[in-house]
């Protein structure tokens, strides 16, 4: 899941300066779970903007705003409102915001900051698990990502900075390598850590990524 936080309202207002008619787009997926762009937050945003004298001429919570075709379809259905809007405020991740821009070609504003790819630990608690490195190495640790869980992203074991199992960079966070070590110890596979891990191939991270599936004959 893509974890987002809503931007500070003052920042949103500054971005909307000089624009009166606003259309708001939310997201039924990740942003709903993050409570940043679900129906409730979209309605709250509408109220707050109206209090500031803006006219919210319409809003929609798209099922999957990062799905371009669906977003195009939904925004076409709302065409009359969208076309009259001075700007669109998107309460979703950066992917959703740009998909809305591409679908509408309108003046599009991000209402959220996109933070990380995470898991929901429990309601309202998210933590990062994957850094999208394009070359998964979870096999090496039997399921814990050192690139993500170690602040420095070290591949060959811990630095000397862990104190009582916590990272020196942020004592609130577990040392990723300590978690890996304990996991492999429990599995009886600590010897896996003796293998030298070569430097990663960052050419695999060249942006912008795209991927086209081969059509089945």
């Amino acid at each position, binding site marked *: 899941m893509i974890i987002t936080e809503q931007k500070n309202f003052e920042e949103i207002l500054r971005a909307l300066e000089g624009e009166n008619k606003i259309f708001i787009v939310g997201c039924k997926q990740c942003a709903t779970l993050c409570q940043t762009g679900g129906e409730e937050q979209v309605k709250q945003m509408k109220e707050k903007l109206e209090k500031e004298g803006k006219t919210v001429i319409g809003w929609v919570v798209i099922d999957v705003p990062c799905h371009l075709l669906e977003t195009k379809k939904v925004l076409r259905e709302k065409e009359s409102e969208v076309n009259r809007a001075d700007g669109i405020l998107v309460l979703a991740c950066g992917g959703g915001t740009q998909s809305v821009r591409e679908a509408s070609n309108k003046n599009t504003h991000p209402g959220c900051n996109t933070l990380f790819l995470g898991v929901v630990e429990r309601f309202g608690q998210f933590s990062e698990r994957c850094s999208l490195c394009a070359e998964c190495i979870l096999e090496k640790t039997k399921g814990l990502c050192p690139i993500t869980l170690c602040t420095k992203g070290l591949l060959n074991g*811990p630095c*000397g*900075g862990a104190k009582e199992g916590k990272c*020196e*960079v942020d004592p609130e966070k577990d040392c990723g390598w300590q978690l890996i*070590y304990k996991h492999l110890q429990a599995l009886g596979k600590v010897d896996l850590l003796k293998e030298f891990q070569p*430097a990663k191939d960052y050419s695999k991270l060249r942006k912008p990524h795209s991927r086209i599936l081969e059509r089945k004959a």
Partner: protein
Amino acid sequence: MSALRDALKQGRFVITGEVGPPKGTDITKLMEEAEIIKNRVVAINVTDIQSAVMRLGSMAVCHLLKEKGIEPIFQMVCRDRNRLALQSDLLSAYVLGIENVLCLTGDYPTLGDHPGTKPVFDLDSVQLLAAAKGLCEGHDMAGNALEGNPDFFLGAVVTPGADPVEPQILKMEKKVKAGAQFFQTQAVYEIDKFARFMEKVKYLNVPVLAGIVVLKGAKMAEFMNKNVAGVHVPDNIIDELKTSTDRVKTTIEISARLIRELKQLCQGVHIMPLGWGHHIPAILDAAGL
């Protein structure tokens, strides 16, 4: 030929010191400190943007020490340079006469004075050692041949007091395989614990210089216990500092005693005076070295 390599090869008990480049261009104090200790140590580490606080670079200071006939140990961290810059700087260091390189991961930038910078960590310390060894063998990380190759004496670090220590030892073994020829350790105050560590790493057959951080007082010791991973100053040392009527004398005695005890256990000591470099001669006198 590296004097540090020679000294360790001859089986001498090796003493290394350390200087930290200043924030700015005034190197007067740093050079004075190096001059005070130069005849008492085999080589002097020059830290690389220590604590992620922007300052004068390690390579330039290493070169200046070398010009004064002082053997430098070039510390190199992975935080600030990608593999192109790290390898290039290794070549640059070598043509400036630098032969000893200590490869480290580096402190994380948010702990320093430019917290918004992009952390690099393209390589980790093990990969940096392997890259440096590759250069010595005549090729870069991409496998391309070099026109003239360096001949480095490569070092690495380890935290003997880490808990658990096993992951540190696993990594130490990787560092040896990747090219580390000597180790300097995080500060050691617990001799028994260090002795057990040395027993565990005996199979690696690599020289270890135990870290001595000169304790300037009880407050500093308590601060280290609270904040520095893998370092524990025992109560008896803290009490000694607390009840002392002559802080400098007590500090010198404690450091000298640690060195005397460590002499039985490892191949040398690495003294990190943190600005008290002028007391190193007295510490070594008291240690009988």
